C-alpha cells in the first residue's frame, strides 16, 4: 500500500506536469468554466423585459400613471420612448417586440369616464414572447384600474409569496450553472487524463508498472480534480464578485463543489476510457451539459415540469447538485426532496460513480 500511495503521488505529480505543459488546454478549460455562466446569462436576459416602443402622445398624470403600471408589470417591458415612425421602423427590423401607443386624449377621456382604446402592435414572430406580452398589457390595465379606484372594479388579486423576496432570473440561473460548469470542466479534464494515455500509447506503461494500475489512474484523476477545483474557484469568484450573488451558506457551497468535482472527474475518466479519443470529449460534455442543464431544475424547480421530466431529471447527479447549490447560495429548496436527502443522493451518486469508474478502468485500462 505504501508503494501504491507513493506511485499515486508520483502519478498525480506527472499529470500536473503534463497539464503545466499544456497551458493552452488549461487556459481553455478556465475559459470554458466561465463560458457556461456567460451563456446562461445571455439566455436569462431574454426571459424578461421585452423591448417595447412607447409612443406617448399624452403626458398627463393619468398617462404617467399607466406608464408606471406598464413598467411595474412583472418585469414584462423594457419601455423605449420614441415616435410612431421610429417604432414602425424598429419593429420592421426586429429590434422591438411590440409598440404601445398612449393616445392624445388619454387623460381627458378617462377622467370623463370613457374607455380609451390603446393601440398595441405586436411582432408576433415568436409565440412564446408575444404570449407573455399579451398577458402583460391586461396586467398593467388591472393595476391601473385598481390604483385609480375606478368604480365598477369588483375583483382584485391578492398575492402571498412563499419567499419574502423575489429572486432575479439570472441570479437563479447562474448558481445552477455552477453545477454544470463543474460537470463540463471536471468531465473534460478527467477524460483527457485517460484518453492521452491511449493516444500516446503510454497506457501500456501504466499496465507494466510494478504497482496496481489503479493507484496510477487515481493519481491522474486526483491531479485533474485539483485543476478542476481551481477552475471552479475561478467560476465561483466570478459569480460572487462579478454577479454579486454571494452564498448564504459558504460551507455548503464548498461542500457541494467538493462532492461534485471528483464525481464528475470520475465520469470524465469513464468517458475517456470508453472513447479512447480526445477529439469528441469537449463536444460530448458540452453537448450533454445543455440538455442536462434544462432537465435538472436549472431554470425552475423541476417538479413543476411534470412527472416525466422530473423522473428523467433523477437520472443524473446534476439534479441533486443543483438542489444543494441553490440552497447553498439562495437558501432555496428547489426539489420535493429535503436538503439532507439531496446530500445523501449526491453522496450515493459519488460512490456509484467511483465504483463504475473503477470497474470501467479495470476492464479498459488495466486488463487490456
Amino acid at each position, binding site marked *: 500500500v505504501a508503494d501504491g500511495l507513493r506511485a499515486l503521488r508520483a502519478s498525480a505529480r506527472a499529470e500536473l506536469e503534463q497539464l503545466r505543459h499544456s497551458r493552452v488546454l488549461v487556459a481553455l478549460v478556465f475559459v470554458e468554466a466561465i463560458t457556461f455562466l456567460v451563456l446562461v446569462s445571455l*439566455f436569462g436576459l431574454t426571459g424578461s423585459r421585452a423591448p417595447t416602443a412607447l409612443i406617448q402622445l399624452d403626458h398627463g398624470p393619468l398617462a404617467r400613471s399607466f406608464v408606471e403600471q406598464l413598467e411595474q408589470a412583472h418585469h414584462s417591458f423594457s419601455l423605449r420612448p420614441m415616435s410612431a415612425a421610429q417604432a414602425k421602423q424598429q419593429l420592421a427590423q426586429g429590434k422591438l417586440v411590440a409598440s404601445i401607443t398612449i393616445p392624445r386624449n388619454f387623460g381627458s377621456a378617462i377622467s370623463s369616464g370613457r374607455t380609451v382604446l390603446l393601440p398595441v402592435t405586436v411582432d408576433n414572430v415568436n409565440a412564446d414572447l408575444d404570449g407573455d406580452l399579451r398577458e402583460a398589457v391586461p396586467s398593467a390595465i388591472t393595476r391601473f384600474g385598481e390604483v385609480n379606484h375606478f368604480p365598477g372594479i369588483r375583483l382584485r388579486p391578492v398575492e402571498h409569496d412563499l419567499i419574502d423576496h423575489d429572486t432575479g432570473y439570472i441570479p437563479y440561473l447562474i448558481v445552477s450553472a455552477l453545477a454544470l460548469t463543474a460537470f463540463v470542466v471536471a468531465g473534460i479534464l478527467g477524460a483527457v487524463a485517460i484518453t492521452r494515455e491511449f493516444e500516446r500509447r503510454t497506457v501500456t506503461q501504466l499496465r507494466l508498472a510494478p504497482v496496481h494500475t489503479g493507484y496510477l489512474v487515481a493519481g491522474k484523476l486526483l491531479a485533474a480534480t485539483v485543476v478542476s477545483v481551481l477552475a471552479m474557484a475561478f467560476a465561483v469568484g466570478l459569480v460572487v464578485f462579478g454577479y454579486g450573488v454571494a452564498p448564504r451558506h459558504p460551507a455548503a457551497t464548498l461542500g457541494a463543489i467538493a462532492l461534485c468535482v471528483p464525481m464528475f472527474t470520475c465520469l470524465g475518466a469513464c468517458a475517456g476510457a470508453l472513447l479512447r479519443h480526445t477529439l469528441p470529449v469537449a463536444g460530448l460534455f458540452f453537448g450533454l451539459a445543455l440538455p442536462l442543464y434544462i432537465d435538472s431544475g436549472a431554470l425552475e424547480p423541476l417538479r413543476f415540469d411534470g412527472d416525466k421530466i422530473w423522473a428523467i431529471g433523477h437520472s443524473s447527479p446534476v439534479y441533486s447538485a443543483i438542489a444543494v447549490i441553490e440552497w447553498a447560495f439562495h437558501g432555496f429548496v428547489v426539489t420535493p426532496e429535503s436538503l439532507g436527502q439531496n446530500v445523501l443522493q449526491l453522496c450515493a451518486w459519488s460512490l456509484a460513480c467511483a465504483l463504475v469508474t473503477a470497474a470501467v478502468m479495470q476492464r479498459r485500462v488495466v486488463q487490456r
Partner: protein
Amino acid sequence: MSAVLTVARLDLAVWRRSPWAILAAVIPPIGMFVLVKVLTLSVTVQPVALVIQDPGPQAQVVSHFIENDTDSYQLFVTSMKRAQQLLDKQRVAAVIVIPKGFDAAVASGHAVLDYTLNNTDIDFADDIRRSIDRTVAEFDAPQLGSSVEGRAGARGLVVPNAYRLDIAEHDLRTTDVSFETYQTLPVLLLLVLSTGVLGGALLGSRDHERGTIVFLRQAPLARTAFVAGRLLGALLATAAITVPAVAYLTVKGVVHPPPGHWPAFLGVLGATAFFAAALGVLLGAALRRSTTVALAGVIVASYLFFLGGGFTTIAFLPRWLQHVSRLVPTRYGIDGMRQALFYTDLHGVQTDLLVLGGFALGTLAAGVAVLGRSVR
C-alpha cells in the same frame, strides 16, 4: 484548379474516415436541439391548484375563466388541504383560492382572488402573476380586447369597460411561429458553425500531429491552392452534414420560407458555412493540437452562436452587448436567416450577406497567412 480539388478531395476523405471528429462536431448541436425540445415543454403552462370555496355563480364565472385558460395553467381543481400538499411537494407553483363569501364580496365591489405563489425565481412567478391579472381583468371586463379601432375612414367601435382602457392589437404577421420552430432554426446554424469550425480546425491539427505537414511542404503546391483546397474540403464536409439536416427540416415543415426566399436562406447558410470553415482553417493552423483545437472549436462556436443571437434575442440584451454583437459575424447569419424565414420581405438580408462575406474573407486572409507560414 486540379491541385485545389485534390487537396479538397483528400481532406474530405480524411474527414469521412474520422468518426470521432464528426461526433465532436455534431454533439453540441444535438444537445442544443434536445434542450429546445425540453424547453418547449417547460416554458408553456405552469402547474397551479385552484380551490373553490364559494359555490355561488360569480365564483363559478371566475373558475371557468381559470379553467379555460389552458395556455397558461395546468390546473388541479382540489381542496385547500390537498392544494397545500401539492404546493409543499412542488407539484404546483401556486394555489389560487376563490374564498368563501366571494359572491357577496363581488356584490359589494370588494372581492379578492387570493393566491399563494412559490416565487423561487421571477421567470415562472411572473408568468403566473400575469396570468392571474389577466383572469381578474376578464372578470370585470369580459369584453376586453373586443373593441375595434377606426381605420381608413371607417368608424371604430369602443366597448366600454370598468378599467376604462381597451386594447386594439395589431399583429405584424398572420401566424405566430412556434417557440420550437423559432429556436430550432438557430440550432441549424450552430450545426453549420460547429461542423465548419471543427472540420477546418481538425484537418489542420491532424497535419501537425501526424507529421503530414512535412509532405505538404514538399508537395508542388502553391500556398493559395493549398488553402483554397482545405477551405473547399471543410466546406464539403460541412455540406455533407448540413444538407441532409436542411432537407429533413424542410420535409418536417420547420424550414418553410415564404415564396422567393429560398435563395436568400441558402445564401445565408452558405456564407455562414464559408465563414465557419475559414475560421476552422485559422484555428487549426494556429493551435495545432487536436485536444486544444476541439475545446477551442466548441468554445468559439458557442460564443459565436449565443452572442450572435442564437437562443437569445439581441434586442433584449443591454445596449453595450448589442454593440458588441455587431462585431460577431454570426449575428448577421442569424438575423438574415430569421428575416428570410419568418418575415415577408428580405429587408437587410443583402447587408447581412455582405457583412458575413466580409468577415469570412477577413478570416480567410488570416488563415492564409497562418497556414501559409506553417506550410512553408
